């Protein structure tokens, strides 16, 4: 059976599917945030699905998603010109701003599945997946480090890539690439 139908059959009865998109042969399912652990257990343990491998876990910041793109100025014969074109309106910030994406793999049938969870700025907490997959430990720490999304129940939610005192979340879109002048104070007592 088609993977899409199988996933629907598995998650549909519990109303776990918010949206389902198939693009270029890749299936992506959006699920409600509060039930992410149940969804993962279902996807892992249901026979016929058996997504037994968490290949990656990542965060997404959609801050600039709805901003109008700068169009290249069209050159007309009169020189500069073409200013009469209406600029596309700014639709405002995307809500919810963040996503957490889980990339699953079924080793038996070599099938892949994307599971997405949307995270509101007002409630930046997602349940941890470490009870389901041990492999979620470090990726969740990385997402916490880079985006500030907290994982509830994580055994060791510390920064992974930046040092412990680092005050910001650098992969957020409103964080400048060159940093905000954070300084590393060397401490030899550790």
């Amino acid at each position, binding site marked *: 059976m088609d993977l899409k139908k199988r996933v629907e059959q598995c998650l549909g009865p519990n109303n776990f599917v918010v949206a389902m998109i198939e693009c270029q042969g890749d299936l992506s399912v959006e699920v409600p945030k509060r039930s992410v652990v149940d969804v993962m257990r279902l996807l892992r343990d249901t026979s016929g699905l058996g997504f037994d491998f968490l290949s990656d876990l990542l965060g997404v910041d959609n801050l600039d998603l709805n901003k109008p793109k700068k169009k290249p100025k069209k050159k007309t014969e009169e020189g500069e010109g073409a200013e009469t074109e209406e600029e596309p309106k700014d639709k405002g910030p995307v809500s919810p701003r963040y996503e957490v994406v889980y990339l699953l793999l079924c080793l038996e049938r070599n099938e892949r599945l994307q599971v997405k969870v949307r995270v509101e700025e007002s409630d930046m907490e997602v349940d941890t997946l470490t009870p389901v997959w041990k492999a979620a430990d470090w990726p969740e720490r990385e997402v916490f480090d880079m985006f500030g999304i907290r994982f509830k129940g994580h055994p060791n939610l510390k920064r992974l*890539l*930046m*040092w412990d005192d680092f005050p*910001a979340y*650098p992969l957020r879109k409103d*964080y*400048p*690439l*060159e*940093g*905000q002048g*954070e300084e*590393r104070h*060397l*401490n*030899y007592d*550790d």
Partner: protein
Amino acid sequence: MATEAYNGGGWIATKLEWLINWGRKRSPWPLPYGTACCGIEMMCALAAGYDMARFGAERPSFSPRQADVLIQAGTITLKMAPAFKRVYDQMAEPRCVISMGACACSGGVFRTYSTLQGIDKLVPVDIYIPGCPPRPEALLQALLMFIEKTEKSQPITHKKHSDLLVGT
């Protein structure tokens, strides 16, 4: 007397310095601190094709306490900075730091929140090698500059090794 001062040190002092420098200059034990692609070039310079052993540097010292030259080959991130500083602090004087490659010299293309913008912000650097990555010949030239610098150093009259200028 032979020990009386002319032009700085006396005859015995200068000859003794010459002897110490002669002993030191052909056996610089490098501490290879390869953190990025420059490290590959450093390995290449150490291996048979370029053969750093010709200049006495055939014994990479992975313990900082026995090393003379710290070859920093690659990017230092701010996360790594304390470990790097600690390694430098453990080296005994006289010590020399070679900053190899654009990342070590200035941060290179990584002008970001996470990268140390040049290791000279953290430790004094004696010799800079530009390049991304530099060829092994450039590292060999840096070793030759180290030798040149060692010849000029004054271990008895206690002039700081890092105060001496190399080159023209």
